[in-house]
């Protein structure tokens, strides 16, 4: 009942933004629509957290606590980035690229496609929605119209579409298994597949999961399938990068998790769990050297995304109440920290006219708020107390040791410490010192501080105190993931 309107709102907003109106009105409609989507999303999520899973008539849409967590991440980050986009786009005027109308239409269709990906029950339609996110967001990645942006958009389109074609083969194999197990009752509805998972053919489902992991793993940015991600994240407008990194890659991971849960019912937790653990750990390890040697701020943030999606994947592969709780909360914490940092990067790039870290100096003097937030955001993303990511990273590492995976725990600690040293060095170089003379005029705009205040606030709050309803909500998502607990 609450799910249909939630899907419709972003599309209505897109339609409204398409109207030939004055720029101011397009911006207002964008903000209003994003706010309405935020309200509807939070309302839907709360109703799921409190009253349990919601199904729409005909079983088309389905939301449990896991979907609800993703809904919260999507609507919060998309709302903040919609506000930030207003100021960002104004400053970009006269540099070519998309005007506000085209930009906001694509933006809200993009938001709608992500909501669809986590709301549809049918895993075939989930594939359709995830592929739609690629198609729409590629337009936004290329929206600045520069050569580099078009190149990034093309690579992103080709790599993710090829990747996800493999996932389609995985969906087909799943349907094949479903037809053989259930005959005329066969369906691709996740609820049906997971309920009858033990009747699916194990060999076919193992093969299907391999294809699914390659396909949706590409979208999630899991190494070694992450190569589109640094290009797209670095060339897209900063608010779009915030959504790609904070939200979109998690929609890819969400699809992997749904199939993982089917597989756990079919062949037990070890097969897909170990694959996730391996890919996750590899992503964390691979991101480290790239973070250390990086020269471009937004590419640096992109490799942080590879690292953190890897951490969440490790947590899911490990299983167990502690690891899953930390992993699910980390999914939210990372979205907040990354949104903040991409907004900071957007401010810096528009003021300094570059994202090359070597050419950004004295940010604290030139633009005090952004400069300080750069340091705050870096401390947050590298997991220093009192920030929220410290708590969840600690939880994931502790879970690795608690479950006897000493090697995993040691690799994680080594990676996290190295990343901290590297990233903090980069941030200090940019924040301190004297700004050079070619710094552009002050940015202005009332939306920027607003968009940054929320992630800073939540990032600190969840580090020192997690309110009971939030704990319950995360526990709900953990319960979905622990349908068949790993022993």
């Amino acid at each position, binding site marked *: 009942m609450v799910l249909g309107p939630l899907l419709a709102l972003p599309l209505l907003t897109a339609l409204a933004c398409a109207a030939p109106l004055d720029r101011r009105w397009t911006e207002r409609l964008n903000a209003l629509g994003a706010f309405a989507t935020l309200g509807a999303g939070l309302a839907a999520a709360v109703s799921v957290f409190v009253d349990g899973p919601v199904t729409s008539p005909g079983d088309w849409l389905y939301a449990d606590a896991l979907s609800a967590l993703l809904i919260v991440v999507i609507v919060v980050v998309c709302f903040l980035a919609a506000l930030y986009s207003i100021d960002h786009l104004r400053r970009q005027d006269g540099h070519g690229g998309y005007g506000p109308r085209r930009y906001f239409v694509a933006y809200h269709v993009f938001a709608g496609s992500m909501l669809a990906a986590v709301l549809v029950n049918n895993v075939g339609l989930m594939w359709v929605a995830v592929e739609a996110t690629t198609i729409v967001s590629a337009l936004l990645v290329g929206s600045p119209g520069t050569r580099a942006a078009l190149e990034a958009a093309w690579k992103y389109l080709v790599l993710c579409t090829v990747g996800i074609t493999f996932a389609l083969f995985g969906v087909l194999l799943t349907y094949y298994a479903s037809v053989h197990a259930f005959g005329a009752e066969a369906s691709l509805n996740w609820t049906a597949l997971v309920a009858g998972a033990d009747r699916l053919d194990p060999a076919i489902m193992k093969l299907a999961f391999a294809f699914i992991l390659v396909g949706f793993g590409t979208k999630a940015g899991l190494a070694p399938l992450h190569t589109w991600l640094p290009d797209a994240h*670095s060339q897209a407008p900063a608010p779009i990068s915030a959504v790609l990194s904070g939200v979109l890659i998690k929609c890819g991971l969400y699809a992997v998790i749904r199939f993982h849960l089917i597989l756990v019912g079919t062949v037990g937790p070890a097969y897909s769990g170990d694959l996730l653990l391996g890919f996750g750990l590899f992503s964390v390890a691979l991101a480290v050297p790239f973070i250390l040697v990086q020269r471009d701020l937004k590419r640096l943030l992109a490799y942080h995304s590879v690292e953190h999606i890897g951490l969440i994947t490790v947590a899911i592969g490990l299983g167990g109440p502690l690891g899953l709780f930390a992993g699910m909360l980390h999914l939210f914490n990372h979205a907040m920290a990354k949104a903040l940092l991409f907004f900071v990067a957007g401010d810096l790039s528009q003021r300094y006219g570059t994202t090359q870290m070597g050419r950004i100096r004295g940010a604290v003097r030139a633009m005090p708020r952004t400069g300080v937030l750069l340091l705050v955001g870096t401390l947050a993303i590298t997991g220093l107390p009192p920030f929220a990511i410290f708590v969840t990273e600690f939880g994931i590492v502790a879970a690795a040791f608690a479950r006897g995976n000493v090697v995993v725990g040691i690799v994680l600690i080594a990676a996290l410490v190295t990343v901290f040293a590297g990233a903090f060095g980069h941030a200090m170089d940019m924040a301190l010192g004297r700004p050079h003379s070619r710094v552009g005029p002050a940015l202005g705009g009332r939306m920027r501080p607003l968009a940054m205040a929320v992630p800073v606030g939540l990032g600190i709050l969840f580090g020192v105190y997690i309110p009971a309803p939030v704990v319950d909500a995360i526990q709900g998502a953990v319960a979905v993931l622990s349908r068949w607990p790993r022993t």
Partner: protein
Amino acid sequence: MLGALDARQMFDGLAVALLGITLLSAATHRLDRAIYLLAAQGIVLTAAAAVGAMASLSAHSLVAVALTFGVKALGIPAILLFALRETRVRRDMDVALPYHLSLAIAVGLVLLAYEVVAPLGPLDAYGTRNATPVAVAMLLIGLFTMLVRRKALSQVGGLVTMENGIYLAALTATHGLPFAVELGIAIDLLVGVAVMSLVSRQIHRAFQTTDTDRLRTLRG
């Protein structure tokens, strides 16, 4: 109603036709011919969908026939031809590999596909010999095309070939996917190809070439 035996023979024949068309497109360097060959793939797939519809006699599969024809035989080739006319790229000459070699590799991929699928026994509902291996071969050849071709539109052709392979497998293995899913996939494919040809036109304007080999400013 079509007998199971007739359906099997027809599927076998159509699969072989698809294989021939796919090999031809692996061997051609002319972009317009490659697009016509994609349209031919679409027509053969429409015929395959029609055989499936006659064998199962369901309303959904009849609509699927029309959908296949509209998207794969008409829509996608039309979009690509339009993009081709604008960029005026006739040939994809500088393929990374000489074309005898790419044809040889494509044939090798076909043999590989048969080799991999044969031990699994008949996977599809009709017990055909060719449908599943041809589907796998199309998946591999499409991927191979995307790797070695440099022109943006050739790469889109490879992608469509991959999707067509999966569609063939779906037709024979499970009488297609549920209709809502097939509809969604068709829309995605159509819009996806449109967006890709849009971006390739923008690249053409910005770089004065659609040679994706020139796209290497982004590194590390």
